[in-house]
């Protein structure tokens, strides 16, 4: 892409921190320095990291809410239609439109629609399943699933500058800063750029 710059050799810089507290303080510094294309890798969910990194609010909640509403209305209407229009049956003398008995199914339809939307919406919006990601090639990246807390700054960030960003990340208390090289596809592109 950016043929003029050799920086495209690097997909991202990954800074490593020992504790969740160190990660949160560093994340706030990264956010305040104006970096936008950032992410955090942690072995377990760290409270407040989304706010500390200044990541945009997820729109999943709104999507799930709409799905829940759709499921509830759909489930309720399905029962109304079946029991009053499609196949009316008298059950122990109750009226056809027996709304108290519709509540459990309505509730279940709501949960089902919300749950499926949350699950598949999460997969789609995270572009999962994804067998390979450039970050996998970073040295020591496995530690982010066991005991280390990491901040990723992508090279596509407008403020990104390999040397400057690296020393900045070190100044936030990172134990080490590693570069994630591009995958083969990205590297080929970078080589193309260098040849021209």
């Amino acid at each position, binding site marked *: 892409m950016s043929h003029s710059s050799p920086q495209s050799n690097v997909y991202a810089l990954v800074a490593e921190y020992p504790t969740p507290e160190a990660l949160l303080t560093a994340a*706030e510094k990264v956010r305040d320095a104006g970096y936008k294309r950032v992410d955090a890798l942690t072995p377990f969910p760290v409270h407040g990291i989304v*706010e*500390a990194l200044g990541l945009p609010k997820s729109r999943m909640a709104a999507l799930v809410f709409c799905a829940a509403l759709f499921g509830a209305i759909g489930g309720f209407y399905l029962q109304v239609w079946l029991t009053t229009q499609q196949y009316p049956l008298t059950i122990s003398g109750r009226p056809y439109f027996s709304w*108290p*008995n519709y509540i459990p199914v309505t509730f279940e339809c709501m949960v089902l629609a919300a749950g499926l939307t949350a699950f598949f919406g999460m997969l789609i919006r995270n572009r999962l399943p994804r067998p390979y990601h450039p970050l996998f090639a970073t040295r020591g990246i496995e530690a982010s699933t066991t005991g280390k807390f990491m901040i990723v700054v992508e090279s596509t960030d407008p403020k990104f500058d390999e040397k400057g960003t690296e020393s900045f990340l070190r100044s936030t208390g990172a134990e080490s800063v590693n570069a994630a090289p591009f995958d083969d596809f990205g590297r080929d592109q970078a080589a193309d750029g260098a040849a021209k």
Partner: protein
Amino acid sequence: MNEAIKKMRSKALAFGVLGTGATIAGYFIAGQQQFFQSWLIGFLYVFAFACGGMGFLMIHHLAPGKWSLVLQRLHEAATRTFPLILILFIPVIMGMNDLYPWINPSAHNDHVLEEVMHHKGMYLNVHDFFLRAAIYFVIWMAFAALLSRWSRQQDASRDTAEAEKLALKMRMLSGIGLVIFGLAVTFASFDWAMSVEPKWYSTVYGAMLMMAQGVATLSLFAIIAFKLASSDKQYGSVIGAQQYHDIGNMMFAFLVLFTYLGTGELIILWSGNLPEEIEHYIIRMKDPWTQLIVGLTLLHFTLPFLIMLWKSNKRNPRRLSWIAAWLLVTSLFVYFWYLLPPLRPEPPYFHWMDFTAPIGLFGLWLFVFLGSLSKRPLLPQKDPRFPAVVAQLAGKSSGSEAVVSHG
């Protein structure tokens, strides 16, 4: 005494005197039956805060959560109001004959009631009613006294070992205590509230009332915590957006659970359609009770539910206080729904004393509660969990999650 507490206290006293005064005047205007019915509503409305406080205090000791430390002293002060609850219970006893049809079943020209009481009389009789009431109050007051006493000893403890020993003691008592307390509230709710319709029964009644008490208690304490935070510097420094969020989540959970139990009861009774159970709904299927239940469903559940789905509404203490104030008001109508239809079969109506009695008793209760609250430090500073709470908030003070500013 804290400025905010002082202000709230004088307001509470004014409401208490005016409301109770009007209710007592109503005794001579509207008659004693009206007075006792309204008093029972007011009594149950206020009883909720003492019970809620004790339940949450025991949960707080039992599950070592950090979020409820800011409320511990509020819970403790609420449990110390049981003597007042006992005083407010006296008019209920005086009005027993007007409130509970099971006392004199033959006077109601209802042979079903007589037949039912023939069997239920083993439990529902005046002698045992008094005996059980005495047991309930002994249980509640004993737990309240012990937990408050150990908590005071913890405040005076010299080292962490001593403080931790006391924390363990409170935890042990709360473990057994929560079971005994839960049973006491359940049976008290059977005796004092459910027995206004003695032919009917519901095993979930006690649990349902406890959930309603939980909603009311947390709502009240959310407001008081916010007031304290804006007037007391130290209190304000340990309560942040996260704590309000947690309180809001608990309010939300109890509200949903309350609705869940009520809906479950409806589905089961309605599906069974048995004569001894369904009467509960039949006597409520007329104006204004139908409007009451539609209003409760929309305003006590649907609206607050939707508002509290938004995270920001729970993290902002000002907005949370508004929601809490709303729920405090709508909580009163829950008691209307459960008690008024059987108390006033024909003709059904609301009375102005149904409002003055709860307002008056609530004012008196709040006055006593705040007085009790201000006698102790507002925070359990020697609690082993306390340093972690301070550290958590201090660590976050540089971020956007900082302690919310109070104005």
